[in-house]
């Protein structure tokens, strides 16, 4: 019941929130936050217990099912987690609570907001624990609904456009996924949607069928990641979404794409993977460089962070292209976690500034370091984490990815991707300089106040984890080791 409760408790929470009186804003906020503590603590416990008891093997843990759900279609209720889903479940639990905490300044249609947020959590948890395609697909789609409304109602000036773009783009990809799922279903004998079974049987498909399925899955997942050139929904969604939603978007939703690749299409279609791995890595490298360059040209703080996500997720794709290297795949998982923590924190911090200054235009600021020392310190720390400074999680992941990819892929390609390290530093430091250094405009920003306690509390856990993973990555690596080694073997079939 443990994994089911990760989904059910937020759903129940949603019902509870919806039953609350409409005008008790404070009550709704606290109720939702406290309810979200339960899956968060559960996810912590799962991470801890998995680390202690299950990390040695690659088998699924806390398995529920498979129970027959729709027998005529052989649809099963089947949940389980392993080394690649546990860190993401952890991240989902943590970031949801943090985001709810960061949503306390929402004052418009509070009840719906918090209800949608809990529904979103249920969907995300569901994606990470489902082991049946039907279930997976349902959660994958369910999650779009609250996200659509969260952007479309509580967003910025172009919220409708952003929300619709996000929704339709993802849905467009989902159709390809559905086709692939159906191909898998009808080619399996007996027809099944059980992922664990399909991982065993799918590699026996013909090469061309594998290619079709792989590419269709790839389109669906690549839109989610987003892989260049499917990324343009991301900046719009991020810029328009309220802070907390951006945090979830960057911290969890993007990871669903890379997670699904590792869980589904990579091990299921090794023959297609072998043929396409170079192109996948190439898309990753383009994403790294391109995202960094476009970030450099941004005038809006949030858009800069959004494009930096394109660059950072490019590292994941590069690693996924180097699928034969355990180091690279470990780096990919590290990058997913690390990007979730760092970019989540950056969005929170940008939100903190936006709440006070009501603008995110980089050129409007300057010299904030003197007026907001604590905020600046925290922001600079996360900036450094984002540009891959040693001692922070971003460095560990990038280094592993580079090392692994360098051994497994074309050396020139990886050599070019290293340029991203300098470009990343360039756009981030330019931003730091223009916002925090230089002269302070006392007349305009004299009234700004430094970051408050609630906001500090919401970023401190992210900072501590960033540092912890950066300084001592071993626990996370051990947690995933067996799973990833098994995965690499599956992909090398």
């Amino acid at each position, binding site marked *: 019941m443990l994994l089911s409760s990760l989904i059910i408790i937020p759903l129940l929470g949603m019902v509870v929130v919806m039953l609350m009186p409409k005008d008790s804003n404070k009550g709704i906020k606290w109720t939702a936050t406290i309810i979200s503590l339960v899956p968060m603590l559960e996810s912590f416990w799962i991470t801890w217990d998995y680390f202690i008891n299950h990390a040695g093997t690659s088998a699924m843990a806390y398995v529920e099912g498979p129970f027959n759900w729709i027998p005529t279609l052989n649809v099963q209720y089947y949940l389980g987690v392993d080394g690649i889903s546990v860190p993401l479940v952890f991240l989902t639990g943590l970031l949801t609570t943090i985001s709810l905490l960061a949503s306390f300044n929402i004052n418009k249609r509070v009840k719906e907001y918090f209800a949608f947020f809990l529904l979103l959590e249920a969907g995300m948890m569901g994606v990470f624990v489902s082991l049946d395609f039907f279930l997976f697909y349902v959660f994958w789609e369910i999650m779009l609904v609250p996200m659509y409304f969260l952007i479309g109602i509580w967003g910025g000036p172009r919220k409708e456009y952003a929300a619709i*773009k996000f929704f*339709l*783009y993802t849905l467009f990809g989902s159709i390809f996924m559905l086709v692939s799922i159906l191909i898998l279903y009808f080619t399996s004998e007996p027809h099944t949607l059980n992922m664990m079974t399909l991982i065993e049987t799918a590699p026996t498909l013909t090469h061309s069928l594998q290619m079709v399925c792989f590419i269709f899955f790839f389109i669906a997942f690549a839109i989610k990641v987003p892989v260049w*050139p499917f*990324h*343009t*929904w991301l900046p719009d969604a991020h810029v328009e979404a309220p802070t907390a939603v951006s945090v979830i978007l960057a911290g969890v939703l993007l990871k669903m794409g890379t997670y699904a690749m590792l869980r589904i299409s990579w091990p299921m279609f090794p023959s297609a993977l072998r043929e396409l791995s170079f192109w996948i890595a190439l898309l990753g490298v383009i994403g790294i460089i*391109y995202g960094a*360059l*476009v970030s*450099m*040209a*941004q005038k809006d703080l949030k858009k800069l962070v959004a494009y930096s996500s394109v660059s950072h997720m490019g590292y994941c794709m590069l690693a996924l292209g180097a699928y034969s290297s*355990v*180091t690279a795949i*470990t780096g990919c998982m590290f990058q997913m976690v690390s990007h979730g923590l760092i970019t989540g924190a950056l969005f929170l911090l940008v939100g903190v500034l936006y709440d006070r200054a009501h603008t995110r235009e980089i050129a409007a600021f300057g*010299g904030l*370091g*003197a007026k907001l020392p604590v905020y600046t310190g925290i922001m600079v720390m996360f900036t*450094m984490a984002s540009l891959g*400074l*040693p*001692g922070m999680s971003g*460095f560990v992941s990038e*280094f*592993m990815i*580079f*090392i*692994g990819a*360098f*051994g497994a892929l074309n*050396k020139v390609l*990886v*050599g070019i991707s*290293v*340029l991203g*390290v*300098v470009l990343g*530093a*360039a*756009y981030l*430091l*330019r931003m*730091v*300089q223009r916002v*925090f*250094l*230089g*002269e*302070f405009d006392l007349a305009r920003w004299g009234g700004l106040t430094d970051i408050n306690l609630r906001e500090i509390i919401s970023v401190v856990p992210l900072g501590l984890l960033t540092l912890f993973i950066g300084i001592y*990555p*071993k626990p996370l*690596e051990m947690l995933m080791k067996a799973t990833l080694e098994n995965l690499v073997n599956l992909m090398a079939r």
Partner: protein
Amino acid sequence: MTEHSYLICLLPAFSFVMIVFFLRWKEKVAAGFSIAMILASWVMSVIVLIETLARHGHAYEAFYNFLTFPGLNFQIGILVDPLTAVMLVVVTTVGSCVQIYSVGYMHGDPRFSRFFSYLSLFLFSMLGLVLANNFFMIFIFWELVGLTSYLLIGFWFEKKSAADACKKAFLTTRTGDLGFLVGLFLIAVYCGTFNYGEVFDKIAMGAMSTGVLTAAAIFIFAGAVGKSAQFPLHVWLPDAMEGPTPVSALIHAATMVAAGVYLVARSMSMFVASADGSMVVAIIGLVTSFMAATIALTQFDIKRVLAYSTISQLGYMIMALGLYGYDTAHGQHSVGYYAGTFHLMTHAFFKGLLFLGAGSVIHGVHTNDIREMGGLYNKMKTTAITFMIASFSIAGIFPFAGLWSKDEIVAATLHHPVFLILTLAIAFMTAFYMWRLCFLTFTGEPRDQHRYDHAHESPRVMTWPLVFLAFLAVTAGWVGLPWLHHGFSSFVFHEAPPEHHGPSYALMIISLTVGLSGIGLAYLMYYKKSLSPDVLVNKFRPIYNLLYNKYYFDELYNVVIIRPLLSFANFMWKFDANVIDGLVNLIAWLTVLWADVKQWFDKWIIDGAVNGAGWIVRQTGEGLKYVQNGKAQFYTLFISIIIVFIGLIKYELIYLAWGWPIMTIIFVIGVLLLTFVSRSTRQGTNREIAQEDKV
């Protein structure tokens, strides 16, 4: 003690954490704590050095396997060999002096505690870099010193120049680090380990082909080029002088910038296996050294002269190391390794002293421009004397420390005439520009009376470190006295201590002469003023302009790299917004357009057909109903027409084939006619009825 030498770097880290979280509100406590920690590190470093001496230089290594991947192993560990032990002492000595000095220099700064926390963080990183036992760890600390350098250059970030400089420093060094990273990847892929010893063993066993090895060595060297401000990445160091002067002394003169030299010395086994790689190193070192020395001749900012001097001296060391690698690769004997590392040590002391002295001067007169100084000897004797001691040292005058190490560098170039001549030329220029600085600053008439009147000697907390470093600037070279068998070289060496054939007096005399003539020229031009610098300037105006503008490197990079990069970034953004996103939006727009077309089709064609059919039937019925009007004449007329019509067909006056259209026409005309007729009659009837009703 050696087995606990990790504490040497952890103590400053502890100090950083304590200041940031607990002590930053109490300035004096923060500074005191920070100084106490670095002094403790210093004591430990000295003990470690003594223990290493007692072990006859045998290395101590301890590590812990941090992460293990198939075919690759990450370690965390320390390696204490003679090079490390010497570097530890150098870093902690200069670090202690600078911290104590900073108490006076930073007095009254609103971010006083923060300054000490940054210094502690720097010392942690730098000491970690020195203690590391593998390439992975050295890279981590390498980046961390880059961070602290960034934070400290930008310490007074309200100044735009400081904000620009810190970013420039970080990005320029990081560009070099790209190469370092690629070098690390090559090592990882070909050797499967980062541990120095293991990597060198693997290389000795032929794990890399010569080509790969040369590439790896040059890539690693790229990191050193960035960090040690070598051509072509030297542009950041002069700008880094925007930081507080103690920072310039510690980071941008004595320690961090020497990390590049340290790295080359550390990976010497890679260079000796690659003659080409070593030659690249040597040439870069020579070019840098010469270029920076020539620029230093013309600068007026006291710190910038010192900055270019630093670049030049670092180039010296790099060149010596490169020549060692090259000569050794060719089986020749060379003292380059010893010369480079020895000079690294002496340079740290005298250059640290020069910067602290410059800081003391700036503290007294509040300007960096030597054109506004002059005659300061009378006002600040301790500063002046210690500064001159350091200037003697760097100029290579007997018996100051610089002489002994610089002589070894000259000795290292003996097999390469071009190197030898240029090295001596650089030595001459060094002596000249340093003494130009001394004379302009401390002697002659004050050129800015106001500043002169307010000038004062710095407080003791600042002058004591000067005196201590001055002591070292004299004596530190004595550990390598040729009469004492070049003691340093039998301690710090690569593979085997170099053989010496007694003191080389000829070399010493040449070197001394060069140094003295440089000082002499400066004396004539700036003290006696019997030679006018202006005449020279006017005579060589184009060259002077070139040097004064630092060979236009900044302008060049701005035009060739920075601006194109930013325009390219903007172009990519436009591309993203218009082409890629434009494509997405175009698809969306086409979808909507398609939907609109379908909507129109649906409304007017499909639904139009349905509604049209109904409309036609309705209208027909509407027309036909008047046919049934109950008038016998009308029925007769109608029947007659039909009969006539049938008759026409019967006698083939018209053909049946025409019939349907004609019939239809007649029918329609008839119906319309009838409708009209009957409507008017009915309306008439209605009117009549209405009138009847009224009546």
